[in-house]
Every structure is written in structure tokens, then in C-alpha cells.
């Protein structure tokens, strides 16, 4: 008897308040990370685009009365100054430009070259596939930073070369992904249907395979923007990026290394900027992947 009673209490309907929370909870859990990541990323884009308006002073202006001063020690220099008396906050705001330019442009290069090659490899198969994939494997033998480092050393440090180097270094990742996506997509019935009504290979790839692979490719592209920004910062840090006096987060940090004893704020704030930017694109990419691929969520 007692058992039956206990079973009854368990089966009681859940109170309405919990029901509402239960419905809102997963929605919030799903969208909150995207919101935080997107806000961070948007902040970075605004910072880069409106640097001349946002920066309190010129990034190269030297203030001889404020050399190596801590945050707030001198009026107007909220994040302190470096060894030439330049304002750290202004340099970080301007530094967002290089990071974002390299991050977006290099991923765009890798995407526009890598995706068509990958789709072609997956769709055509045979010798085309072997040739493209062996080339990609060869580039894959190098970790991203190492390959970018070799290329940028060969070409010399400048904004365009850095974009090219990181773009080429990321290229094989896009080739591989696009190939595996197109291998799956080409088996679909709608491809056969399109083929039956006389669509040519180019049309099949451009109008049918590519649009169906686009979602997954965009997710991965977002994650690689994070990788590209980190790689750019690493190259700048090693002294192989955009040459000074153009401020980049990596070269601000690298210059600040000599002064970590007296003036840790230079390295602390520039590093924080790098981390937040990388974090923003990682969060957005992660959240997008979770939304599009429920298997990865694990619930």
C-alpha cells in the first residue's frame, strides 16, 4: 500500500513554476553563450572600426612627462604608458585593427581557396582528389604557427604577408573539411535528381553541394578566426609580424616584456586584449556548433 502511495506522489504533475523554468532554462543555456561571445566580438569590431574616434590619443604620440607610468598615475592614461610615454589604451584600441584584419582576411583567403578545392576533391574523386589531398597533407604536416612562421620569414613581416602566411597555414583545414562534407552530400538523392535533370558538374558543386556545406563551414570558419588572431599575436610577439611603430597586441606585449619588473601593466593589458578577442570567436564558434550539431552537446 505504502509503495503505491509513494508512486502516486512521484507521478504528480510538476508545479507550473518549474514548468516555465524548465522551458526557459534550455533556451537561455543555449543562447546566453552566443550572446556573450557575440557581444565581445562586436565590441572588438567596433573598437577596430572606430579606433580614431574611440582612442583618447594618437597611438604613436609620445608624452615625455609620462614614461612608464602605471594605470591612472597620470591624468588621461587609464591603462598607463610604455617606455616612450605612449598611451597603452590607445595602442590597444588601434591594435584591434591589425588583429581583426588579419583574423578575418586570412580566414577568407583560406576559405575561398580551400573550400572549392575541397569540394572538387570530394566530388570528383580519383586523381583530382589524390593530388589535392596529398598537397593538403603536406601542409598539414606543419602546425599552423610553424607554417605561418616559415612563410612570414620568407616573405618578410608586413600586414599583407602575415595575412597570406596565416591564410596558407589554415588552408588545409578548409580543404579537408569541405572534402569530407562534399563526400557525404554527393550521396544525397537531391544530387541525383539534379543530375537527372541535366545539371553539369560545376552547377552541381556550386548550386547544390556548396550551399549544403555552408553552415558547417561557417561554424568552423568562426573558430579559425580565433586561431588566426592567436597566430597573428604569436607572430607579432616573436617579432615577425607587422613591424613597429604600428601597434599590434603582440608587439605591445613583446615590447613590454623588458619592463615586467617595473611595469607589468603593459604586458597584462595587451595580453588580456588578445585573450578576450580569441575567447569571443571561440565562444561564438562553439555555440554555433552546439546549435547545429546536437550530438556534440551531449544531452
Amino acid at each position, binding site marked *: 500500500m505504502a509503495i503505491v502511495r509513494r508512486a502516486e506522489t512521484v507521478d504528480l504533475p510538476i508545479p507550473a513554476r518549474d514548468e516555465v523554468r524548465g522551458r526557459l532554462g534550455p533556451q537561455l*543555456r543555449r543562447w546566453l553563450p552566443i550572446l556573450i561571445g557575440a557581444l565581445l566580438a562586436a565590441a572588438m569590431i567596433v573598437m577596430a572600426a572606430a579606433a580614431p574616434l574611440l582612442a583618447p590619443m594618437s597611438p604613436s604620440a609620445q608624452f615625455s612627462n609620462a614614461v612608464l607610468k602605471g594605470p591612472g598615475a597620470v591624468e588621461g592614461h587609464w591603462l598607463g604608458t610604455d617606455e616612450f610615454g605612449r598611451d597603452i589604451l590607445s595602442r590597444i584600441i588601434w591594435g584591434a585593427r591589425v588583429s581583426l584584419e588579419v583574423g578575418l582576411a586570412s580566414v577568407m583567403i583560406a576559405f575561398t581557396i580551400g573550400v572549392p578545392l575541397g569540394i572538387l576533391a570530394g566530388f570528383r574523386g580519383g586523381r583530382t582528389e589524390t593530388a589535392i589531398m596529398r598537397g593538403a597533407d603536406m601542409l598539414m*604536416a606543419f602546425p599552423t604557427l610553424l607554417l605561418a612562421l*616559415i612563410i612570414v620569414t620568407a*616573405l618578410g613581416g608586413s600586414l599583407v604577408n602575415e595575412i597570406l602566411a596565416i591564410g596558407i597555414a589554415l588552408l588545409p583545414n578548409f580543404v579537408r573539411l569541405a572534402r569530407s562534407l562534399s563526400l557525404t552530400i554527393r550521396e544525397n538523392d537531391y544530387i541525383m535528381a539534379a543530375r537527372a535533370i541535366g545539371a553539369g558538374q560545376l552547377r552541381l558543386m556550386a548550386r547544390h553541394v556548396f550551399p549544403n556545406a555552408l553552415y558547417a563551414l561557417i561554424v568552423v570558419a568562426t573558430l579559425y578566426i580565433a586561431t588566426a588572431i592567436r597566430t597573428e599575436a604569436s607572430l607579432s610577439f*616573436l617579432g615577425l609580424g607587422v613591424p613597429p611603430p604600428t601597434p599590434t597586441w603582440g608587439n605591445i606585449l613583446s615590447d613590454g616584456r623588458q619592463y615586467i619588473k617595473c611595469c607589468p601593466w603593459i604586458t597584462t593589458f595587451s*595580453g588580456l586584449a588578445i585573450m578576450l578577442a580569441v575567447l569571443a570567436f*571561440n565562444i561564438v564558434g562553439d555555440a554555433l556548433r552546439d546549435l547545429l550539431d546536437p550530438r*556534440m552537446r551531449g544531452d
Partner: protein
Amino acid sequence: MIQYIVRRLLVAIPMLLGAMSIVFFAMRVLPSDPCVAMMGGDATAAALADCSKNLGLDRPLAAQYVNYLWRSVRFDFGTSFRQGYPVGEYIARMFPHTFVLVMASAVVAALVGIPIGIISALKRRNPLIDYPLRIFALLGLSMPVFWLGILLLIVFSLRFDLFPLIGGGDLEGVISMIRSGEMFSYPRDFLKAVGDVLYHLTLPALALGFTLAATVSRLSRSAMLEVVSQDYIRTARAKGNIERIVIYKHALRNMMVPLLTIVGVFIAIALTGTVLTETVFTRPGLGKMLVDAIGARDYPLAQGAVTVFTMIIIVVNLVVDMLYAVVDPRITYR
């Protein structure tokens, strides 16, 4: 199995060759002449020609290329432009430093990353546990190792004076004591030397290990998720096993196979990480050697370093592929 190994080796050879060609040609189109870099802009034309001849740079590119490949196969990477002694010797001296750094950070990454990945997979429905752990993983993935290194230096070396600011300790001394057997005759001195090496290793290993732990935790999380959804786990539960036994005895062991896949990726990331870590901590090693060689336009040294890096990555991936068959008997190779 043997057939598979042979085929896998044959695939690795053109890959290595291609990677080495990329390195060679990239280094040869460098904008500045190494002789000018070494002797300065004021050097006479005759002196520059002489330098070029000595370094073999006056020979046709094709001849230099063939020569480079042939010598690399025999681990002869030529003579360093700057230091003037064999690159192979230099690499052999630097390798142990990088090796201990990679190993120590692997230990840190495994000790931190694997438990975090497992817990976050098992407790994924508890947001109070899952969320902080996922945030930790995201932070680790996003934090540049050179920044974390500097923060550790600021706090532990400069503020609390607990660890050294630069250097790698007397690793050569430790190795020679092991080789000569002095470690047994002078155990106290040996332990002191080992202690000094560890003292220098702690912060770099923590910095690199923490950033790698994030990757490890993510991969162990998905490996664990994959395993707990298998039928044999349901069977283990259905038999009436308590949850702890199911996890420790059935899930953990099977999780190790997918985890093995990441060893190759891990080594590649860790080796790249050493380039930055060794630079931040001013530690001797292959990574710092590469950066210094590029700065000095020392072709043979830079080429040697990159070639060794690439060889290590290709060989590790090869070994990992073969280990699968040993660890998981269900996998067969044709």
C-alpha cells in the same frame, strides 16, 4: 599488419620530402642575404662573394636543394652560419631541453585535462559543475601561452621570488651524470642537479601544460560521451553494477583508445607551444633556437630545426596510428 606499416611508411616519405622542400624554398627566398646580415652593410663585394662561396650559396639552387635533401636524410644539416659548428650537434644539445618541457607539460595537461574532461562529461546535466569546467576549457584554449607565461613570471618569479626568471638548469650535467654512472656514486649531487632542472622547468611546464590541458579536457569529454553511450555500458549497468564500477572498470579503459588519437595532435601543438614558451622563459631548446636562427638569418640552423620538428610530428603520427592496433584489437589493417 606489416603490410599496413610498410604502406604507412611509404606515404610518410613523400610527405616528409614535401615538407622539407617547403622549408628549403621558403628559406631560400628570404629577402635578406645572410652574408650581408652577418658582415653588415659595409662589407666589400669581394668579402661578400667569399662568404657566399664558403656557405655554398653561389652554387645553383637545384644543386643546393639536392645537397640539402641528401644530407638531411643522414641528419647532417650543415654548419651554422653564425656559430660555426655543425647544426646536428646544436640540435642534439637543444633537443633534451625541449623534450623535458614537452613531457612535463604533457604530464600537467593530462593530470588537469583528463579528470576535467571526464567530470564534465559525466556531470553534464549539472550546470553548476559543467559550466565552470567548460569555461575553464574555453579560457585555456583562448589564453596565449606567452601571456600566461609572463603572468606566471610576474607573480611567482618577480613578486614572490619562488622560481627563476630565465634559463633551463644544468640538463647537460644531469644527462652526463646518467651516462657516466655518476648518479649512483654521487646520488646527492645528482638529485641536486635534477632538482635544479625541475626548479627551472616548473613555470614553463605549468604555462604550456595549462594551455594544452584545455584541448585535452575537450577531447576527453567527447571521448567519454562517446563511450558512455555504448551498449556495453548499458549492459554493465543492467547487470546491477554500481555507477563507480561502471565508470572506472568499463568506461575509463575504453575511453583511452579515442584519447590515443590526440597524442599526435598533442605533440604537434606542444612543439609549436615550445617555440613561444621557450622564448618567454628564455629557456634553451629547439623552439628558441628556431626563433633565434630566423632572426639571425642562419639558414642551416633554421632549416635543421624545422626539419626536425616536422620529422618528429610525422613519426609520432605514424607510431600513434600503429599503436591503435595494439590497444584496440577490433581495429584491423588491410
